[in-house]
């Protein structure tokens, strides 16, 4: 089992993000696993790290309305490798993000307070 005294699952994920990569894990039965874990769900077995090709499909989407800000997109993205994550689709109005839309990953660099995180952009220009 992976030691947690030197590196955490999230720590490894963030190292990949700093390289512009979206990392995920695969269990011994080949299932994709996300979020990153120290042990495989269901089996308790070991997990291997992989790097996603970065292509996915919007599974669901909402726009949140904070006072004094434009609507902010929040989406669940189903990655082609078979895992799902919460993220945001950028470079498009929040309300124009549609279920079924194909999207491409990029790493958001974060800032002093926020570690880097994955965001998405539409694969094709919206019609």
């Amino acid at each position, binding site marked *: 089992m992976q030691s947690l005294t030197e590196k955490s699952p999230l720590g490894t994920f963030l190292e990949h993000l700093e390289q512009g990569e979206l990392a995920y894990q695969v269990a011994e039965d080949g299932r994709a696993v996300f979020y990153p874990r120290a042990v495989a769900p269901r089996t308790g077995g070991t997990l291997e790290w992989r790097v996603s090709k970065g292509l996915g499909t919007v599974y*669901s989407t909402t726009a949140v*309305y904070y006072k004094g800000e434009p609507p902010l997109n929040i989406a669940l993205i189903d990655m082609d490798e078979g895992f799902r994550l919460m993220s945001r689709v950028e470079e498009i109005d929040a309300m124009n993000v549609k279920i079924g839309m194909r999207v491409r990953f990029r790493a958001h660099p974060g800032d002093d307070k926020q570690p880097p995180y994955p965001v998405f952009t539409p694969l094709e220009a919206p019609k």
Partner: protein
Amino acid sequence: MSLSRGSVAVVGAAESDLGLVAQHTSPLDLMAQGTIAALDDAGLQLSDVDGLLSASTQSRFAPMALSEYLGIKPRFFDGTSIGGSSFMTHVAHAQAAIELGMCEVAVIAYGSTQRSVSRAAASPREYNYYEAPFRPISPISSYALAAMRHMHQYGTTREQLAEVAVSARKWALKNPKAWEKEPLTVEQVLNARMVSYPFTVRDCCLVVDGGGAIVLTSAARAKSLRKKPVYVLGVGECLSHSSIANMPDLTVTGAAESGPQAYAMAQVKPSDVDMVSLYDAFTITPILFLEDLGFCPKGEGGRFVSGGRIAPGGELPVNTSGGGLSYCHPGMYGLLVMIEAIRQVRGECGERQVPNCKIALGHGNGGALSSQCTVIFGSEATL
């Protein structure tokens, strides 16, 4: 070994003060007030209580704090905390404890001052790296994502969501204890301030203070107490995930598992149920639960709630108190969901009473559609 249909009964049920309580009132004040009112309802004393179950986001070790407050040393205690459905789970656990002789009189209590102290103070969020950067309004955005998926797959509309809020308000106007006192229209719901699409503020539950308690004991002891016993016919529980990104299918909740468990134990089917009390945190949740609990086919929930079917005078009485949307929603509303179902079986609901209500279903929801627990209550005639 499994729980036995009708082995325990609810013998006391009461709300604490609801709405907006005085400054410096604590959640424990409300739990204690509800506990004594529920014991009075049953004709029991604090000294009879040997089981105590409680959960609160404002009291991390609620059974400990409430035991101290009440000056009792319960033999059995449980602080299972899985959000708004915690108290349905407490019913199952209390039933198990009573059946095993671990206690005889169990109190389940809840209290919240989230309106007085603010939601942020009452229910501080745990940090989750996989959600925090995207700034969801928790938990509203999680439910909005489920609603959007339901709308996409089944053609559910914002107007149908609004029908849930409008029906709840019609019931609330028949409940003197309801927070909301004015009528509500579909147009008002749609045109209210948008929070997280497709939800306006009127698609979202109230943020008020409140709490209460229920008292359970063995069916044998229940017969000698003040009120007609309301028997626990069936219980079912399901934990399917924690955060919304890990919910396998956003249109199918764990109610599809907890419901059949409860029906099997109760030996009833949805068409036997006279009244339904569903955790309506948001307008999508009764739609999902009506489907998953077998009151309509999957995907039909939006059409099912339309045309006043779940409003007063409709085919299926749902959330006759006015629900979390219009009556009271003190953060973890599941206890009040059950209190209304219990009162309907007792026939205590006045203007909103469902005629000849023998079987009532209470369904609780917690987290981001994460914990689903169902309790089926029945009158003596159903044993």
